């Protein structure tokens, strides 16, 4: 529970969590919050098209005469669904690959990490564009593509952590007691990497949301769903020459809002759990020779211990 306390004490994390909570609430309560149902096509006159904001339509209307505010509210759903599911997928794959590669090492680890390197060098967005263009533009495809391409960094992170954890004494003890490899991985090593993975997964959510928006903006989103990227796609082609800022700005700012919140949360978590930013909780800084000799106060100030 120490981590929770630290999180609450960090203003950056609290602000981020608050911002995200707002978006989650909006997404959940969309049917009650949205003044209109954005899925329903409306009969329009030329005056309704890109009509500026007024009392009935607080953020004006889009190029099909539909209420922008309602679309903005419903758009939160797509972003969150894509963000959370895709990042959960990358987290799962990345952790598995990282654990296996780190624990077994050798040829298996080598091949897995070469696969990671291979996927890392390919620029993600163009690859996604090609895959979506070939497989079709359903929401499932978009989630799969983002999830299946986004796990590489997590895998590297987990592997490096596993490499260090598996040399620890408690692993040696478990092994000498006759524990099987899967048991060691799941019961002894996995818990040590979970905090790191979660911090990374939160950051991945924002990457996934941005990826979804980029795809939709480039015209490769799910055409049956309203998403922020899709709104930008239409605004970009049809609203700019009419100076209809009310159609262009809100989805852009919404994307910034949700990405920012996730990055704030992710970085706060990262600061709490990442061994490179903090001393690991298994590490007793007081016993480290270098620290004991050089800068003893650091160990005290550093409250990351148990």
């Amino acid at each position: 529970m120490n981590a929770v306390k630290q999180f609450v004490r960090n203003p950056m994390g609290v602000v981020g969590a608050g911002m995200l909570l707002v978006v989650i609430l909006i997404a959940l309560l969309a049917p009650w919050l949205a003044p209109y149902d954005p899925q329903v096509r409306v009969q329009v006159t030329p005056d309704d098209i890109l009509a500026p904001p007024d009392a009935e339509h607080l953020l004006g209307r889009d190029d099909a005469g539909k209420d922008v505010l309602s679309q903005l509210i419903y758009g939160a759903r797509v972003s969150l669904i894509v963000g959370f599911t895709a990042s959960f997928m990358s987290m799962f794959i990345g952790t598995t690959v990282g654990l296996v590669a780190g624990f077994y090492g050798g040829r298996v680890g080598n091949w897995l990490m070469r696969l990671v390197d291979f996927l890392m060098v390919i620029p993600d967005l163009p690859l996604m564009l090609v895959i979506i263009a070939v497989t079709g533009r359903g929401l499932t495809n978009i989630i799969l593509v983002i999830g299946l391409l986004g796990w590489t960094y997590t895998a590297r992170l987990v592997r490096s952590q596993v490499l260090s954890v598996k040399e620890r004494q408690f692993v040696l003890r478990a092994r000498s007691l006759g524990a099987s490899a899967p048991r060691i991985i799941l019961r002894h090593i996995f818990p040590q990497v979970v905090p790191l993975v979660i911090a990374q997964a939160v950051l991945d959510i924002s990457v996934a949301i941005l990826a979804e928006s980029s795809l939709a903006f480039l015209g490769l989103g799910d055409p049956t769903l309203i998403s922020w990227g899709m709104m930008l796609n239409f605004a970009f082609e049809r609203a700019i020459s009419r100076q209809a800022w009310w159609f262009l700005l809100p989805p852009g700012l919404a994307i910034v809002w949700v990405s920012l919140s996730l990055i704030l949360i992710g970085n706060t978590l990262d600061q709490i759990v990442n061994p490179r930013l903090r001393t690991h909780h298994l590490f007793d800084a007081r016993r480290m020779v270098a620290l004991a000799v050089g800068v003893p106060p650091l160990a005290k100030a550093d409250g990351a211990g148990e």
Partner: protein
Amino acid sequence: MKTNLWRFLVVCVVLALTAPSLIGCQPQPETTTEAPQVQPTEAPAAEPTLAGAEPPTEPEPVTLHVGTTYIWDTANPTFGWYNYNLRNLIYDTLIEWGDIDTFEPDLAESWTVSDDGLVWTFKIREGVTFHDGTPCTAEEIAWSLNWTIENEIETFSFYLANFAEVVALDPTTLQVTLSDPVGNMESALLLFTWILPPSVWDGMSYDEIMEFEGVAAGIGTGPYKLVEWVEGEYLILEAFEDYWRGRPAIDRVVYREFATDDVMIQALLAGDIDVIDMVPGPGVQSLESADTVEVLIMDSLFIDELIINSHENGTQPASLNDPQVRLAMEYAFDRGQIITLGYLGYGEPATTVLPTSMGDWHNSDIKPILFDPVEGNRILDEAGYLDTDRDGIREDGEGNPMEYRLYATDSASNARILEVISDGLSQIGISAPPTVMNEDSLIGLYPDFDFDLIYWGWGLDPDPDFAMFIFTCDQREEGGWNDSGYCNEDFERMYEEQAVTVDQEERRELIWEMQQKLFDDRPYLVSTYYDNIQAYRSDRFTGFGLGCGDILWKWCFLQGSPIE
């Protein structure tokens, strides 16, 4: 990790806010192409006293920049089929299409026809040369027409189907003998059969002709010669010194390709370009409010339509071939909303394949069927298409749900139009989720007619022959024009009959009957005859003819001149 945070923030803000403008960035052709043409830096006004000693300074060439979303697919005139106005600036024909319903002498100064309508004699203009300097006399014209016929050059050999013999009697006389009399010699047959130089095209095999690319493919006798074309970026035309009407007033025409309409509109407002060849509906308002821009909303020969797959070997579901289903779909086709959303109101609801701008050719007896889903539902109920499993989608007699594939090319306005179509169809119990795809994928469906519904459009000839030709059976072959797969014996017979009917009133009746036939069989639900909207910088250019429906059309374009 601190730096990582900032990197993320920056990337995120940049992506969300500036991605539109980044992607909209256009290559700047001027910087690369005009660099060699260094302008004289001395001001001409300072010259007079030294005029005797210095060579006269060249006046700065007048360049007109045209903004377009797509220049063309190939420089090769034998199969390219985009931007005919641009090709028309490069090549000449025997007879020129002037204003929307008039025909002017071009390379032929005058012509006579024998009493039986079979022998046409053209007096050919003297002193015409191709851009490469070779002469263009009756000999070359005869060669060009014969070459077109022999090689079956697809874009224009159909116009020459009845040509039995083309000979040059002397350098200024061309004689054409027809196998059957034709009613539309001036109005259709010669408007697009560009005269190409034997110096370039002679001796090529069919495959070599089809693969020929490069600037030489753009050699004709027209007022402008092709200088450079970079695919997807720009194209440069330069005035032809020896053009038979005299050197055009505008020295260069540069076509620039823009990724999106909005960027193009901003470029016109900013003065980077001088003409937009086709302004999308949403842009009209902001252009009209600018003092320096003149917006032209002109009748055109454009139609947009929903193609219904009518090929007997197509992959469409059987229910789509039922005339009653098609009739019901007509009732579910909300033309008013399509025009409002897709064209911002700049179009009129359509009935037949021939637009009202064709005057008498348009069958005005055919009354529009107004949007009425209740009637559509009634027709489907009566025809036995019921929603037996109560899922909101009707099934045909064999229990197959009425689910159709609805496609269009990738653009925001098409996406909106498909929404309207799909929504209308869902109101009569037909499911047709919209799919937009790039043009290549769409054309890729054609060899097998692997689609149900496609939203598409055409620019027609001033004569109805071509519009009817589209629906003939032979045109279903790969590379043909028939995009619905329609093939009907009666229609075929009427088409052949109208082609040889010289009496224009009789021919009109046939054309009306053919329109009625197409309206009843519905290979197309024609949605709109939309306006051609163009805009130009009225502070820089003036005088363009307005009768052609396109100020870039040679006849109207040559009337334009720069404002000093």
